[in-house]
């Protein structure tokens, strides 16, 4: 893709200066402005948060193997699902791909030496950490029990738990998202290498760009909403609680105005990763580049117009319901277009089954299921029955875990050799992908059935007729939990003991693969000049190495 050639084969990784060994010591990490090092800071912090949130999930599923609850008191169970949701949504899924892979890859993919505002980038990470500390403090100080949705007036006037520290943590972390989004938008606009036009950009960049727009436009709304919640809870200013003159439904409008687009913050970057993986492992140019690119943007735009589908049973007017229903169906179309284009990209390709590709194929399957079950919820008549049941839980886990986390893991496995300069054991990686796929389906498929049978979500105890499906789900969760631990182990192992990776172990196109692994601090010795389209696998051979 570029004209720069680097004699990287002759120099062994250990002796070459790269971004990892350029400087040593804690200070060199905590004060770094290198986007690649900041990506790693994020990687370690969100991995920690993922396993904290995951532990809560395991405890929940363990509790639910008995109808009367096997493990904890209902109050504790309520805190478990709340903290699982808060940590996974705000401290893992939202920053996951943008803050780690996005930070690492945006400058490298567009041929730049860093993001537009390197110090702002470091500040984003510190803001994230301060937000995380507040939220973890809330966990330690007794937890919070409002659900991650913080619905009023329960959260503002009734709950006796640490609502304020939690909301403050989420409020603060939001600024980290806004700054990251701003940094990406400016970087993508202003710092592309010569010749890298918009329609030559890797689709990952398009996806990150669309995500950044949602970051900038959506996040202030959740900040305002939580601020108002704090005002009511601390100063008893009547905003949401009808007992003091407020309107509880107003909160839901404001909350979902951010939180529905936030779903696309979580899935759009995953779609970007998918386009990179599918093209590389089938050695094909993406089918319908402009359709895939514009579907990202149209998802970003429509995502702001569908929040009311969370409120079909609040008693909003029939006509509001109809409007939000039709808009929700519309957002399904660009997602479907992407799935068809990825599938068509495989046609006449040269497909290899390396671990990242297995994660990618898992993504397509689970995302398809997650997207199609969304139709049940966009359909007004069925949503009335399914809203607030386990069907919802299953649906959004197919999107956010089956989709976003699969893509995240696929991306981590794909760029790991570039990030660390080391290879991981491919057999273990493929095995883990399979375990996660099986465990995931066993966990969440029974929940679709539970939902249609009428089991409400957020129940610490439940009627005994739902036990069989709950036990299946819990069994799946234990497999899934093991599935997530396997990569943690071998990836950590590989950082020290893995075989050294060459600059381009997958034979992939893209500017990031023209640099040594790991790249030098300045990424490119010379800024590359781009002369060809993205994913141009047909015109020049790229060998693995």
């Amino acid at each position, binding site marked *: 893709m570029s004209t720069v050639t680097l004699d990287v084969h002759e120099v062994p990784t250990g002796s070459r200066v790269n971004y990892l060994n350029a400087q040593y010591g804690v200070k060199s990490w905590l004060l770094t402005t290198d986007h690649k090092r900041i990506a790693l800071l994020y990687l370690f912090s969100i991995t920690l948060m993922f396993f904290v949130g995951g532990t809560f999930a395991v405890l929940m599923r363990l509790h639910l193997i008995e109808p009367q609850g096997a493990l904890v008191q*209902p109050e504790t169970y309520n805190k478990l699902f709340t903290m699982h949701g808060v940590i996974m949504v705000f401290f893992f899924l939202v920053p996951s791909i943008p803050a780690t892979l996005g930070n690492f890859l945006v400058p490298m993919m567009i041929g730049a030496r860093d993001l537009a505002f390197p110090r702002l980038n470091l500040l984003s990470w510190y803001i994230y950490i301060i937000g995380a500390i507040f939220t973890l403090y809330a966990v330690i100080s007794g937890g919070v*029990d409002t*659900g991650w949705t913080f619905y009023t*007036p*329960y959260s503002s006037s*009734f709950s006796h738990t640490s609502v304020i520290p939690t909301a403050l943590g989420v409020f603060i972390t939001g600024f980290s998202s806004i700054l990251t989004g701003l940094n990406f938008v400016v970087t993508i606009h202003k710092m592309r290498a010569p010749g890298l036009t918009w329609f030559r950009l890797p689709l990952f960049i398009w996806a990150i760009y669309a995500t950044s727009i949602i970051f900038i436009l959506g996040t202030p709304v959740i900040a305002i909403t939580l601020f108002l919640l704090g005002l009511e809870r601390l100063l008893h200013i009547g905003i949401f609680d009808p*007992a003091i003159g407020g309107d*509880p*439904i107003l909160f839901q409008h404001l909350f979902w105005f951010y939180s529905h687009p936030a779903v696309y913050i979580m899935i759009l970057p995953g779609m970007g990763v998918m386009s990179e993986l599918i093209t590389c492992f*089938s*050695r*094909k*140019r993406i*089918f*319908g580049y402009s359709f895939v690119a514009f579907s990202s943007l149209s998802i970003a735009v429509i995502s702001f117009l569908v929040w009311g589908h969370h409120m079909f*049973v*609040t*008693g909003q007017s*029939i006509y509001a319901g109809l409007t939000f*229903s*039709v808009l929700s*169906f519309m957002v399904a*179309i660009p997602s479907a*277009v992407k799935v068809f284009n990825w*599938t068509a*990209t*495989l*046609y*006449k*390709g*040269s*497909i290899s089954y390396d671990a990242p590709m297995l994660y990618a194929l898992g993504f397509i*399957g689970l995302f*398809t*299921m997650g997207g*199609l079950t969304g*139709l*049940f919820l*966009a*359909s*007004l*008549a*069925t949503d*009335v*029955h399914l*809203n*607030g049941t386990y069907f919802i839980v299953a649906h959004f886990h197919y999107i956010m875990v089956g989709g976003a986390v699969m893509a995240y893991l696929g991306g981590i496995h794909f760029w790991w050799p570039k990030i660390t300069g080391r290879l991981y054991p491919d057999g273990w990686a493929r095995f883990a992908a399979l375990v996660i796929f099986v465990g995931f389906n066993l966990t969440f498929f029974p929940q679709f*059935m539970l939902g*249609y*049978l*009428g089991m*409400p*979500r957020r129940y*610490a*105890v*439940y*009627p005994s007729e739902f036990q069989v499906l709950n036990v299946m789900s819990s069994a799946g969760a234990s497999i899934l939990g093991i599935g997530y631990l396997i990569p943690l182990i071998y990836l950590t192992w590989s950082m020290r003991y893995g075989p050294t990776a060459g600059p381009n172990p997958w034979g992939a196109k893209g500017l990031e693969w023209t640099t040594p692994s790991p790249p030098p601090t300045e990424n490119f010795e010379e800024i590359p000049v781009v002369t060809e389209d993205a994913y141009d*696998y*047909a015109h020049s051979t790229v060998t*693995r190495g």
Partner: protein
Amino acid sequence: MIGLAKFGSTFLSSVIQAPQLRPEAASSIAEGVDHLYFVLTFITLFFTIAIFSTIFFFMVKYRRRAENEVPPDTEENLPLELAWTIIPTLICAGLFLWASSLYFENSRPPSASTEIFVIGKQWMWHIQHPEGVREINELHVPEGVPVKLTMTSEDVIHDFYIPAFRVKKDVIPGRYSSLWFQATKVGTYHLFCAQYCGADHAEMLGWVYVMSPADYETWLASGTPSETMEKTGEKIFNKLGCSSCHQPDGTGRGPSLVGDYGKEEDLKSGEKRLVDEAFIRQAIINPNSVVLKNYPPIMPTFRGQITEEQVLQLIAYVKSLASEERNSNGK
């Protein structure tokens, strides 16, 4: 297209009769919702299988055979892109129309519905029949008769959910929401709270008893003898001194409430408001927000002085005044 889909769904639902796949269908709308659900399930399975098998086929057929293999370049195919944009759009449009028309039908209670009142509070359901019978966490309804529930909450948001009827509606403090159903099968069904409401949310459940109309009448009559809601409402009306201003002949300092329910009133603010349950509640709790055009803003608020149940009883009384007037006009 919808007709075709309905035919398909009827066929499907007759195939899928396993009791484990769907809850009991015991209301007039349940079958319709299930048909839509089965068609959606069919669409989901069809596309998932289609995409999976295509991928699987490609993975085998186009597997990498040599490390230096260079496949042919991807060709753009506009008709294909348009096809897989337009076909899903048409499917979505069909689903939208079907689901929305069903929802539209299901949203409007028939005018001749029996009305029952529901108050949610952490963590129980209070239910009151107009005849005066009260229940907790139990709801007795007659089979084959449309029933309209008027619901409110004393604290946080709850949600009244009867899976067997496929109905659900949030129960919200400070406002009235309503849902209706017509039970079609005598039996006992789950009643759940489906909106998280605090510590014992999972215990906020009960049973719905669908009885034959005759059994229902017997049940109503055998309940603890109590006065009707409107009778209790009348007592509260007099006890709180409402009657001193709201005199029936309109000579009091406040407007007469006879025949007021269901009328449009002009407010001081220039707004026109229909006098319904929500309006009467607002006039009691926050009277200054709904002062009528030709009256002074002198009514005191009763916020905190009466319970949601008493408000409902007052409303029942005001409504009875309206029908009295209609009756006397008829004579």
